[in-house]
């Protein structure tokens, strides 16, 4: 018995429509996966840039804080600071400020949902890094406030202020060293992840210490 011509046409058209829909779905899914991968790659690149910048900021301020600490120790042993004016002339309050560290990449990744496209270990490493950074910021902020209170010199005890500043700065310097090590570890992890995703290696940031020195005749 011959099938009617219209039936064959319906079957062919149905198959064509189904295949088209499946193809469209597959293309859409492929585009979504690609967008997610691009977002993840871009996010990791941003994390690497930000972590390098923060590391460079720590590198920039660490020798300054260590030097101020040595001056504090000297002042403490010689009992040379008695008034607020002497403290500000010798040490200065602003010199005790911690560096301001960026967390824009983390906030952006949270806002855009980019973290959902990263694997668990990468997110855990990033979370740990920014948690340590947050703790550093909170600790140094509260420590700095206590220094400001300790340096009112109303009691005329300069040594107390110097000791407080030294204790505070010791914690800051230790935290800066810890944070620097954490950044180095996170940067290494992210660079490996980026390489695994087939993305080109992240070039060194302009403010990063790996920048080549420029020639000068200053000899």
């Amino acid at each position, binding site marked *: 018995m011959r099938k009617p011509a219209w039936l064959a046409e319906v079957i062919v058209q149905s198959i064509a429509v189904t295949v088209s829909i499946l193809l469209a779905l597959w293309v859409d899914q492929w585009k979504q996966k690609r967008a997610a991968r691009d977002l993840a790659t871009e996010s990791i690149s941003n994390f690497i*840039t930000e972590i390098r*910048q923060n590391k*460079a*900021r720590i*590198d*920039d*301020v660490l*020798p*300054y804080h260590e*030097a*101020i600490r*040595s*001056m504090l120790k000297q002042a403490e042993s010689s009992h040379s600071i008695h008034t607020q004016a002497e403290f*500000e*002339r*010798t*040490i*200065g309050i*602003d*010199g005790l400020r911690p*560096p301001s560290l960026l967390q824009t990449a983390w906030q952006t990744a949270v806002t855009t949902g980019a973290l959902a496209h990263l694997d668990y270990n990468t997110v855990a490493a990033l979370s740990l890094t920014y948690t340590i950074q947050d703790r550093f910021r909170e600790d140094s902020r509260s420590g700095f406030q206590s220094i400001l209170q300790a340096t009112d010199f109303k009691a005329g005890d300069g040594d107390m202020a110097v000791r407080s500043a030294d204790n505070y700065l010791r914690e800051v310097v230790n935290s800066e060293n810890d944070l620097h090590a954490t950044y180095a570890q996170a940067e290494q992890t992210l660079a490996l992840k980026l390489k695994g995703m087939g993305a080109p290696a992240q070039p060194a*940031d*302009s*403010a*990063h*210490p790996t*920048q*080549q*020195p*420029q*020639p*000068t*005749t*200053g*000899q």
Partner: protein
Amino acid sequence: MTHSTMNRTVPRLVVSNRVPRYVRPFVYVALCVAALCVPTHVATAQANSRSAIAIVVNPKSSVTNLSFAELRRIFLGEQQFWPDRSKVTLLVRAPVAHERAIVLDEIYRMDEDQFRQYWIGKMFRAEVAGGPKIVYSSDMAMNLVGVIPGSITFVLASAATGDAKIIRIDGKLPSDPGYPLK
């Protein structure tokens, strides 16, 4: 001793007889004024030397001379590393200091607002890791520059004492004539 003998033995400030008599008092006055000006010039030169700004670097730095253009690039944060690859740490006096005013005027060619905006802009563009480190006195500047590797600062030449390593700018020290930071 006769008057004529004294004339022969004692040097006298005598204006040539060819100068007309009525002009001689003016010549004497001019010579006196010139004589008074000599010590004034010497004093001014010494004062300039004292108020000149000395550029001081960490004693371990190998740098002994910079051109003024190189100095500007360092202070503007355009050159952030020394030739030995150590990082430049810039120590700058807090506002109101006389030295800072001179450096802002001569090296940065900016006022305070422009200076602040300049460093904020550089940090915003991630061209530098941080702005200049603030020091509150010449003593603090000298202490810090002595212990921070790669650091550079400026103080009044009279404050650059002890084992300070003052570098030449365009081959000149603060006491030399033609030193650019006076």
